[in-house]
């Protein structure tokens, strides 16, 4: 994997958004708050401990979209065990956002963890 990460374009990130509402066995994890500036929902479906599909909805600044899109791209095909290690710093790096927007990445991390928790419950 290259260490060079280009910032994710907002157009591109929005193009990757969506929800898995109505998909069998899909779960959703939600994090953030409107007053905090971002709300992220991460939708996951998995089979045999491997994530098959990952999508998101987001309200927030462009960095929230970038991190959520980067997370969903990374999660697809990932084992649940590996997904648990995906943290905000890694998401920020993958999304190519600056440290000033790390809060957005942490909200996405929380949404991913909530979705993983829902899958395991």
């Amino acid at each position, binding site marked *: 994997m290259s260490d060079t990460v280009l910032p994710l374009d907002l157009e591109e990130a929005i193009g990757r958004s969506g929800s898995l509402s109505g998909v069998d066995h899909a779960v959703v994890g939600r994090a953030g708050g*409107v007053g905090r500036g971002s709300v992220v929902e991460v939708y996951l479906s998995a089979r045999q401990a491997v994530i098959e599909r990952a999508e998101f909805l*987001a309200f927030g*600044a462009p960095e929230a979209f970038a991190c959520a899109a980067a997370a969903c791209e990374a999660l697809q095909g990932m084992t649940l065990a590996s997904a648990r290690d995906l943290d905000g710093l890694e998401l920020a790096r993958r999304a190519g956002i600056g440290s000033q927007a790390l809060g957005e990445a942490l909200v996405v991390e929380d949404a991913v963890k909530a979705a993983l928790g829902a899958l395991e419950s």
Partner: protein
Amino acid sequence: MTVYLDYAATTPVDPRVAEYMATLLQGDAAYANPASDHGPGRRAAEAVALARGRVARTLGVAPGEIYFTSGATEANNLALRGVAAFARRAGRDCHIVTAATEHASVLETVSALEREHCTVTRLPVDGDGRLDPRSVRDALRPQTRLVSVMHVNNETGVRHDLEAVAAAVAEHDALLHVDAAQSVGKEPLDLSTLQADLVSLSGHKAYGPKGVGALFVRDAPGRRLEPLLRGGGQEGGLRSGTVATHQVGGMGLAFELAAGDRAERSRIATLSRRLQAGLAACGDVYVLGDAASRTPHILSVVLAGVHARALQALVPGLATSVGSACNAPNGKPSHVMRAMGIPDALAQSILRLSLGRFTTEPQVDEAVSLIGGALRRLREASPLWRERQRGAGWEAIYGVSRMPAAA
């Protein structure tokens, strides 16, 4: 080509102003120091006098009552600090009354004065951003030296009732300072009838250059200020420093042009109504500020379900502001919104659009189209919009008791 709808942050320099400034900068028109007692110096002094006269005529005052500064921020500082320092030198207590929605250059200055030797009363506004003039009257004390109230709010476009505020202050031995940076050429401001003692003015908000402004100081007993800058005694000793001839010349012409275009306000009002109607058609768009109190050139809207910064990023061909441009670099929540009782949650969805001299009807239509397209895409991706589609009210989603008026 960018559609520029950020005139409240700054206006483009009018080409006639730029051309005139270039003549002042070139050749022997006005290169000399206007304080110099020789031919070139006198030519520069004539250009400064012409500019002072133009600014004065725009406001209905005498040229000798206009003191050039580096901008409205300095003018605000000079008014507030100047009055406070004079009171202190005279051994008098100093109480200042202002409103919670004033520009940062007023609020931060009064906070600094509060740490030094003044007491300050910050008056609240209502949910529509209006200041109750009765609250000004109630706040006045024997020690009140200054009441500082802006004419037009830079974030919402809400006008304060200056006549009523002036009437309240006139009953008292205090001065009235008005920050009029946002209003020259956009709202009537006649200082021959409005009893303001000090008025801050900006060049770049009226199609003039940045880096120049002025403070009007009424020539009447008791209007005494201590200067901020000391040195050569320029500007009647109130603002030392070589006068920037081309800057003040540009401001003077800009003010004259703004005052001469009487049809402009009506044209802007028509465009603003068109913009608001176009945004209303997008659905779930709300307007901040009482309609009757708003100046037409500023339209602040809540675009429910989307974050305004995301919308801005999605339409790079449209220049707008998220809250006040003055606050934009630090990303702080807007003190104006908070003072109006608008929680930070709702403030995330507020976009400010401001129109001006070079805004055209096709540009307004293009802006509506760009915003409408971005709104649709962001709402499709928004969990808040999903909640709304499932029947939740915006009040519950944003945690507010009521939304502003629908566009």
